[in-house]
């Protein structure tokens, strides 16, 4: 079975002084139809730039480097002409962001913002689009959808706005939904509602999802696969259960040890020493080396992704030692 989305050796670069820095530096992954891949990492690791690159939304002077490849169901997205690309954006791949207020247009009624997507991608009468919009609002759990079509974004709560964003994303009937920190700006009880909704939609619509988050807790119940990112690279990938049972890269282990939990003993958290270095200060060799508790003799050479178990890979020389 071929994957819906196939990303190979994706590199994004920005000018920095005389040279260029690579905040995304050789990222490869696949997403199967109807499955969720969670891309997990801390701020500055390159996870959001990765998702923007998939739709060629990297703001200049940034660019996607030659040799990168992004394929959606056989179509090479990086070589598409502008109008062919527009037919993919919002239609086959849709995106929702952390802060719905900045992605909704404050001066248009939400009904118009939903039907705009339909008119852009499908031949549809005004009446049909309106009816579709009502159904979509219903599907994302907005009460009185008829009424709400006439509302402006500022008249809705944060949770309702994110639901509207999701409705807009669904309007193109996408095969892949990219959700970039979709619940980070929301309260926990609202977060639970939205995550529930996204998961429900993915199942009922057989839609694949790329879930970008810094929160391992969100990943636990929602993703099929997890890819952990650090300093522009994937450093560990595995099926969710496998990753949570056997986190193997020292960085992933550090992340787990530093997450405060509701269960287990209360005590000192075990943080990772130091901070994430910026892209112009990445060390040679293994990029986690300066913070790593394990001083591996080979760490001055950059490790490739190595097999750490069934469907489980990590960028750490420990994998060679059978650990």
């Amino acid at each position, binding site marked *: 079975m071929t994957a819906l989305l196939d990303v190979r050796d994706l590199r994004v670069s920005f000018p920095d002084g005389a040279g260029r820095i690579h905040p995304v530096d050789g990222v490869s992954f696949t997403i199967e139809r109807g499955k969720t891949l969670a891309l997990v990492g801390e701020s500055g690791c390159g996870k959001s730039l990765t998702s923007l690159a998939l739709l060629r939304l990297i703001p200049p002077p940034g660019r996607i480097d030659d040799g990168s490849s992004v394929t959606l169901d056989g179509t090479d997205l990086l070589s598409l002409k502008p109008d062919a690309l527009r037919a993919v954006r919002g239609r086959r791949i849709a995106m929702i962001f952390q802060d719905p207020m900045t992605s909704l247009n404050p001066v248009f009624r939400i009904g118009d913002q939903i039907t705009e997507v339909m008119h852009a991608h499908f031949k549809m009468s005004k009446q049909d689009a309106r009816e579709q919009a009502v159904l979509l609002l219903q599907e994302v759990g907005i009460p009185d959808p008829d009424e709400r079509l006439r509302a402006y974004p500022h008249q809705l709560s944060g949770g309702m706005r994110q639901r509207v964003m999701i409705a807009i994303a669904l309007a193109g009937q996408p095969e892949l939904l990219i959700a970039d920190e979709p619940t980070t700006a929301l309260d926990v009880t609202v977060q639970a509602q939205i995550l529930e909704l996204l998961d429900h939609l993915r199942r009922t619509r057989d839609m694949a999802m790329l879930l970008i988050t810094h929160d*391992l807790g969100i990943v636990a119940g929602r993703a099929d696969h997890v890819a952990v990112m650090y300093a522009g690279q994937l450093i560990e990938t595995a099926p969710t259960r496998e990753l949570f049972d056997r986190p193997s890269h020292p960085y992933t282990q550090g992340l787990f040890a530093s997450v405060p939990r*509701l269960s287990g003993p209360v005590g000192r958290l075990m943080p990772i020493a130091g901070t994430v270095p910026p892209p112009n200060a990445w060390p040679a060799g293994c990029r986690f080396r300066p913070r790593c508790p394990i001083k591996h003799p080979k760490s001055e050479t950059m490790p490739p992704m190595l097999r750490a178990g069934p469907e489980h890979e990590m960028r750490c020389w420990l994998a060679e030692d059978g650990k």
Partner: protein
Amino acid sequence: MSARPDEPILMVHDLVKHYETGGLFKRNRPPVRAVDGVSFEVGRGETLALVGESGCGKSSVGRTILRLQPPTSGSVRFEGHDVFRLERESLRLLRRRMQIIFQDPYSSLNPRMTVGEAVAEGIRIHRLAPGAEVNRRVSALLEEVGLDPGYARRYPHEFSGGQRQRIGIARALAVEPSFIVCDEPVSALDVSVQAQVINLLRDLQERRGLSYLFIAHDLAVVRQIAHRIAVMYLGQIVEIGPSEALLSDPRHPYTQALLSAVPEPDPAAPQDRIVLGGDLPSPSRPPSGCRFHTRCFHPLRDQRCVDEVPLLRPITGTRAACHYAETVAVPGVTAPVE
């Protein structure tokens, strides 16, 4: 008028903070009842966490206690002083003993001031050390919060979020407070850094005997640092008690819902959460009776919840403001405390 040694360091009684919203064209609008009758105490060396979702009034409580904004009514006693009656000179002294650290340290640091100047400012204003001594103190403070003393000559923008929060903490400690309001101090930080800052706050408490009012929305974070927890909903405390009791045997349905919504990094954990229906009602027009009744899922909820305001009363390990707190709404929703 000094405090007895066994008296709590902070006593808040029936604190009310309403914000008038009526502008020129919006007369007769009901005020936002951000804080609506909140009482609690913080002991010496203790951490009380104030937990709730945005708009519940938790930050307003913190700011009103410090007199960063005037209260509508109520009283606050701190180290034996009636905070709301203090005049200028004693208020200045109070400001030295009570400090606050914010969620976003960057917006509370002056970008044109070096880190050293920012930390030294309080020491100079309160004349806590002679001029020559100030730099030595600043170095010691930076070291205490885990920063290189050489950073004193740098500017805030040169630092990461975690480092800026450490600077904010050093700045608060500079005036030798006994009590610090921590307003979402780790919410903006990455997990690995968040853990560093939580550990630092714990160490400082131990070393300096500090008391904290720890304002946060994340129960998993709060559990790592709080001795007691108060849960707020629409301007009121709905449940308060020792951390372990509140997390392992929550008695207010809202506490249960909050606990259930915390995403646990464990795929084997049960995923059937309590998902609250609807949105938070407007704090200008809170529901009658129990303010949670519009979203409550307790099997016994009835007309009494609509008509009668429930008071905080002792249940098992905690005090909860629910008419039916003796019956657990949804059995099994607890944090498994060892």
